[in-house]
């Protein structure tokens, strides 16, 4: 028996496997395939202040070992989310890691405040702040591409949430120096970091010779981006180990399909792992990764999951 529990700041979970935001809706749909309470946590679709229609279609294109999406953060708005989806997640015993966003820093804060005052708040084990979303006040530049805006958002959200609620800032890999954005988020009071969000990509329809997505560009996800996730986790963990960044727990996401894939992210430094696009291939994937990851940890002879976190940094061959 392996002890699969994991501690992410004040958030202690029975196992380290989660859904990825936007790849599992808000739970009802996957609950038809497995009880969502069996995951370490359930990460909800990013929710904003008001209902949003999202973009037109086509919203997706399949790519080699991945896909491009341009959903445009479609969602019901925080009030309907809290009343219906969050309450339901609580009723089935799921641990909700709620993903929030805004088009301005103030909107992030407003969403956090309305979430915290909702009667279903008991189901919330943490808040994931999706700063990989465009900032209308800064010509649509993604918050997470700029340390100053990232810091401001996280600070405002921190102010509006109860002290005991852990906050994870979700970072984009589309930056020159991910450690500097990580530093800004942690400085502002984030308890940990989730990485990575999708990479910006584009597909041309070669019959029509025009962009395949109605939104022209989209986010690339799936196994194709796993090496980028591993690299990002590695760089931030290395910076923490070298004392260039305060130590904080990381949630790894990007291209995880199997327990072995999850182990890669864990060995690079992730204390928990999210399964995203692979869910579209197999709706039970997140649940299966729980068992597969446990088998991988056991295969290596460890009794505790926590002992494998970041282990690749200790085992790197020195020249």
């Amino acid at each position, binding site marked *: 028996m392996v002890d699969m529990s994991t501690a992410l700041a004040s958030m202690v979970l029975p196992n380290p496997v989660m859904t990825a935001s936007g790849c599992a809706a808000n739970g009802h749909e996957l609950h038809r*395939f497995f009880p969502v309470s069996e995951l370490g946590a359930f990460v909800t679709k990013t929710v904003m202040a*008001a209902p949003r*229609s999202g973009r037109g*279609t086509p919203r*997706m294109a399949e790519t080699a070992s991945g896909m491009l*999406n341009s959903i445009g953060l479609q969602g019901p708005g925080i009030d309907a989310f809290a009343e219906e989806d969050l309450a339901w997640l609580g009723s089935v015993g799921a641990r909700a890691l709620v993903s929030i966003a805004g088009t301005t820093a103030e909107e992030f804060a407003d969403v956090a405040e309305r979430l915290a005052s909702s009667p279903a708040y008991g189901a919330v084990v943490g808040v994931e702040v999706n700063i990989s979303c465009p900032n209308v006040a800064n010509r649509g530049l993604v918050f997470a591409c700029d340390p100053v805006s990232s810091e401001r958002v996280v600070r405002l959200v921190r102010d509006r949430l109860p002290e005991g609620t852990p906050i994870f800032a979700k970072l984009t890999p589309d930056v020159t120096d991910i450690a500097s954005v990580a530093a800004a988020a942690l400085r502002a009071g984030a308890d940990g970091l989730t990485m990575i969000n999708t990479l910006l990509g584009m597909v041309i329809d070669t019959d029509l010779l025009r962009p395949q997505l109605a939104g022209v560009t989209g986010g690339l996800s799936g196994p194709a981006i796993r090496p980028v996730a591993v690299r990002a986790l590695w760089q931030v963990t290395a910076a923490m180990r070298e004392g260039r960044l305060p130590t904080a727990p990381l949630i790894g996401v990007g291209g995880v399909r199997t327990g072995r894939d999850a182990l890669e992210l864990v060995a690079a430094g992730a204390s928990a792992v999210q399964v995203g696009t692979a869910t*579209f291939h*197999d709706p039970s994937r997140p649940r299966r990764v729980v068992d597969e990851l446990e088998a991988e940890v056991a295969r290596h002879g460890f009794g505790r999951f926590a002992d494998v976190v970041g282990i690749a940094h200790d085992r790197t061959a020195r020249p």
Partner: protein
Amino acid sequence: MSGVVQVAGELIATRRAGAYHHLTIVSPGVAELARPGQFVALAVGGATSANLLRRCFSIHRAKPSGTYGGTVDVVVAAHGAGTTWLAGLRPHDPVDVVGPLGRPFPLPADAVPCVLVGGGYGSAPLFWLAEALQGRGCQVEMVLGAASDDRLFGVVEARRTADGVVVTTDDGSAGRRGWVSDVLGDVIDRTGAGVVYGCGPMAMLRSVTEIAGAHGAVAQVAVEESMACGVGVCMTCVLPVTGNDGVTRMVRSCVEGPVFRGDRVRWDAFADGVCRVPADTLGAPSAGGH
């Protein structure tokens, strides 16, 4: 959302049907739950496939029990990577099946005459719908159309099942030259149909809706939107549909559809191969916004 299962299925028969491939897949549990209009999502390319997304197909037939256990039949038009892979499968090859998915065609409470319109492989789900309607005492006529003879599916079966069949092809290689929309109005008038069911390309569904409306019938159409998951978790398969409250929302065709009342679909949003978000949609982007 109704019952759904995921099963490691097995192909037991595959045969050509004109331009299409007709596959029979043993998939215990799926057939028992399925209703006409629902679909299955099939994984493609095997365990290490680089094509991660499932491919969706209307259920053509569902047999809850047979020699091999429950089976479902699908009709596949091979064009891209996934459908070409499915078309190349041999008997006893494994096929991972998720289904049944989506909402079925609603059946009328009274025994009203019905017209079933299929475009290309869109006729695939209409035959067991016809049987279900006839079981309720409805008179059923079918209109099948396609670009050419080899792209018609199930004409023989239609003649066996329905009380009347009209066939059209764009090139005149079978039936009447022209489109299903050229003949549909007359069929509705002649039969006094109360409901028109449609499955096929979006442009056809739009004209089916318009003609049904003009001839006093309700249209129920099964739409086809690009789907990444088929189970309701990705939000790629949306289209603008007006609800009972008069509000238009971008709704997921895989869980709230694929069957919609035709007059509720915002056909005005579709043009040039894309679907835009109508300005009056709930949460639509404001000018200059997202």
